């Protein structure tokens, strides 16, 4: 709500200034707000996680992409309301504008002609080809976003036979240098056969099969769909992404976005500067973005620093869950700052996965028998989800997940209260337990596995307490201080009940249903609960090939299949909390990412 009034004020002031269309003002165009601008346009904020890599071909974490979305551009991007809009391309291709062929297999993309990399080089269709071929060859976590393009498997095969290096240290260089060499030599084996450039400003994408979600996946910012500069990368194929761009020199972290990396000290600080005469719009008003990389323990000091004006905001860069409840209450209790707390739903759902598919390692919940299903239902109904949001999140850091796995506000959300597994009914839970486990033998040695940290610990304590109180069943808690081991165990079915969750990458149900239980997931060994249902797979395959409007009912059907099988217990939707000074205009976040920096300006204060 706060956010809405915030935006409204921006629109209003623009209208008063007059002469500028509302549309432009909504984009936060700098010309509309010049009157109240502060002399110093430097945005300062802390982050609490350090990026693993900024290389779009390798990036696999939110902290990476929330920063790099301001440096790299894709053919299209999501605007503040998560709608797809053109970025490097002139239009979003549709059947109507002939961007997509009638069989849905060919995309023709026209590029804007004035686009320049921020080292000054012109961006052409060749750069798109290079970037996408490279991303597929690197085989990072998000290379599957490009998997529908013809020739994907062949290219991965060509690049993926890992050269057997004799020394451990040389592995990185060898692998990546090899890819760069092959790309530089235009080796046909390192080119997606479905990706061609008829001319300097046109890219043609041919798919191996129809794909309803591909356009959104290709638009994921700072990721495999982003366009990078071959010249800059060839200078330092391994560490180019951490090197600043020096004006007049070709190397460094070069993209086509409105900002470039000006200084980087690992685990300490990053400085980004605005590209002068940037090709796009809105032109950046900020001249500089200073990011301090801090330890999470420093956040209460940072809040004080924020109150004193040393930071303009807290929560950007994928750190919107770092403000603790006491700190949020502190800000709320302060008359000056209460209105500067921005609370937004985050596109992240947390649930509990039952082990339904691994008889060897799973517990009494394995299988599709009435007993297994009934026991799962008993444990689901025994958890008071509203109570969880109140006790664990203090109704501040999360809300109860009552509308299915896909978070509220995203495409595919089922509607408030639509998930039968979200109900709380201790009486029925108890009678189900008595019916399917009258002796208590089946549920004697249950374990709940989770990765320690954040809300996971209090959630585990809460669940244990709920099952103890409402079912009289003692469940042992099994925390891993090691998230990677926990995830590996979950992926291989070594658990009985496990914490599970997903934060959406792009606003499409395929991102959820495919990556979590679908055929793509099964192929990668990622199917979290071992849930394997032939109907599910065939409906999913069908839905994935359709445009979203026709696919939506099918995706809802998938959600219902999961619910009928009681594959999970929905727990909560995350809520993001930001502290943003009111003089920072245009700052905020949607449920996916922070708003782009070029929409932001600092008002005089």
């Amino acid at each position, binding site marked *: 709500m706060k956010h809405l009034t915030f935006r409204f004020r921006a629109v209003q002031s623009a209208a008063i200034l007059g002469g500028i269309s509302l549309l432009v003002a909504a984009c936060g165009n700098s010309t509309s707000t010049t009157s109240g601008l502060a002399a110093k346009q430097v945005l300062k904020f802390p982050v609490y996680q*350090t*990026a*693993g*890599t900024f*290389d779009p071909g*390798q990036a*696999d*974490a939110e902290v990476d992409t929330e920063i790099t979305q301001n440096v790299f551009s894709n053919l299209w991007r999501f605007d503040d309301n998560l709608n797809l809009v053109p970025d490097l391309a002139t239009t979003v291709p549709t059947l109507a504008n002939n961007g997509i062929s009638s069989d849905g297999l060919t995309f023709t993309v026209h590029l804007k002609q004035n686009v320049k990399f921020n080292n000054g080089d012109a961006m052409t269709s060749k750069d798109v080809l290079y970037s996408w071929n490279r991303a597929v060859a*690197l*085989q*990072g*976590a*998000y290379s599957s976003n490009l998997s529908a393009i013809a020739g994907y498997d062949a290219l*991965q095969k060509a690049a*993926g036979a*890992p050269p057997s*290096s004799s*020394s*451990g*240290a*040389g*592995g*990185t260089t060898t*692998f*990546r240098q090899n890819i760069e060499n092959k790309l530089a030599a235009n080796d046909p084996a390192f080119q997606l056969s479905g990706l061609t450039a008829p001319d300097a400003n046109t890219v043609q994408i041919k798919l191996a099969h129809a794909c309803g979600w591909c356009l959104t996946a290709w638009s994921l910012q700072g990721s495999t769909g982003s366009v990078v500069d071959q010249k800059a990368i060839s200078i330092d194929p*391994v*560490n180019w992404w*951490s090197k600043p761009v020096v004006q007049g020199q070709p190397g460094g972290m070069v993209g086509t976005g409105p900002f470039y990396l000006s200084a980087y000290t*690992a*685990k*300490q*600080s990053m400085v980004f500067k605005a590209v002068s005469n940037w090709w796009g719009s809105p032109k950046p008003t900020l001249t500089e973005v200073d990011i*301090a990389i*801090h*330890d*999470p*323990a*420093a*956040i*209460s*000091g*940072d809040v*004080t*620093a924020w109150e004193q004006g*040393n930071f303009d905001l807290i929560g950007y860069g994928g750190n919107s869950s770092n403000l603790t409840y006491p700190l949020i209450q502190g800000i709320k209790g302060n008359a000056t700052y209460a209105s500067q707390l921005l609370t937004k739903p985050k596109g992240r759902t947390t649930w509990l996965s039952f082990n339904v598919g691994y008889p060897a390692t799973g517990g009494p919940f394995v299988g599709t028998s009435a007993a297994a299903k009934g026991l799962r239902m008993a444990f689901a109904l025994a958890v008071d989800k509203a109570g969880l949001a109140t006790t664990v999140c203090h109704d501040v850091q999360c809300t109860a997940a009552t509308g299915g796995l896909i978070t509220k506000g995203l495409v595919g959300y089922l509607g408030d209260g639509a998930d039968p597994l979200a109900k709380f009914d201790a009486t029925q839970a108890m009678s189900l337990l008595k019916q399917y486990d009258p002796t208590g033998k089946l549920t004697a040695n249950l374990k709940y596995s989770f990765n320690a940290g954040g809300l996971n610990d209090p959630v585990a304590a809460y669940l244990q307490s709920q099952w103890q109180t409402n079912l009289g069943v003692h469940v042992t808690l099994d925390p891993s*201080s*090691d*998230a*990677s*081991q*926990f*995830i*590996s165990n979950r992926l291989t079915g070594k658990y009985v009940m496990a914490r599970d*969750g*997903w934060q959406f990458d792009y606003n499409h149900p395929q991102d959820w249903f495919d*990556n979590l239980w679908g055929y793509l997931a099964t*192929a*990668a*060994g*990622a199917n979290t609960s071992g849930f394997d249902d032939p109907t599910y797979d065939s409906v999913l395959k069908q839905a994935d090939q359709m445009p979203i409007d026709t696919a939506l009912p099918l995706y809802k059907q998938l959600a219902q299949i999961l619910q009928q099988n009681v594959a999970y217990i929905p727990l909560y939707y995350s809520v993001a909390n930001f502290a943003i000074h009111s003089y920072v205009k245009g700052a905020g976040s949607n449920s996916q990412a922070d708003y782009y920096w070029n929409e932001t300006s600092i008002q005089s204060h």
Partner: protein
Amino acid sequence: MVTRGTLIYIGQRLVLIVFTVIVVSFGVFAVVHSLPGNAFVSDRVHGRALQILLHQYGLDQPIPVQYWSFLKGLVHGNLGVSLYIRDLPITPLVLRELSVSAMLGGAALIVTIGLGITFGVLAAVRQNTWVDYLLTGIAVVGYSVPSFVIASLGILIFGQWLNNLSHGAFFYPEPWTGTYGTLAELSLPAIALGFYTSGQITRITRAAMLDVIGQDYIRTARAKGLQDRIVILRHALRNALVPVTSILGPTVISIITGSVIIENIFGIPGLGKEFVESIFQHDYNVTVGVFTIYAFLIGFANLTVDLVYTVIDPRIRY
């Protein structure tokens, strides 16, 4: 003063330090590599993407092979690359963090020695008075109360209560906000870190002072009419420093250990925080690197203390 014996002794010690570093680094290397999990796995990274990453960083090779390439790098002062921040060279990173820790540790050492000796001398001079009881009491509290309790109480008192009482006039900038911290930010962590070891030093100084004060030459000096204060400073303290020096080695180790806790409470970007972080993140090379640096540090700290010992007390020869 530098005798042949001393040189041989130093040589032996250096060999021991190198040996310790090799044993420790191999032990830690073996331990971290046999830990379950790795730096890369996430909800998104598994299967093929994981295999590719493991291969890129040579983690699919046998541990002895990996250790050998680590040792080869170590000879050149190269600790390898970080796995969490992909390809980041570790040596500059940990050296920078070492400088932060060294600043904190140095400040804590000053607190420790300053507090410890002052309290020890005062307690000895006023033996069996309330001053003595109070100061020895503080000393026991010092080495009994965990540093994180001192630190949190400090945050509560200086960061919150005094701030509220003075309506914001008194302001202690709680946790660390910069790389190196300001003097104000440094004070509380340094005190919380140094307080623990100051207790030991108080006790030892007090005991040594009492020993010395009881000795004949001090009585003579006093009889000659020298003022008490001069006697204490010139004669007694110098001799009392000898046993104090002997526990400087353990003190330094204790401060290094304590800094792991303190840095994590205050979010200080030093080696101690890096160590805990690298364990959680499976950043193998960083963990091994930090251990290696610590082993060097402790070895040299002990050696330095022993050599200083010979300067302070010429009777000691190696």
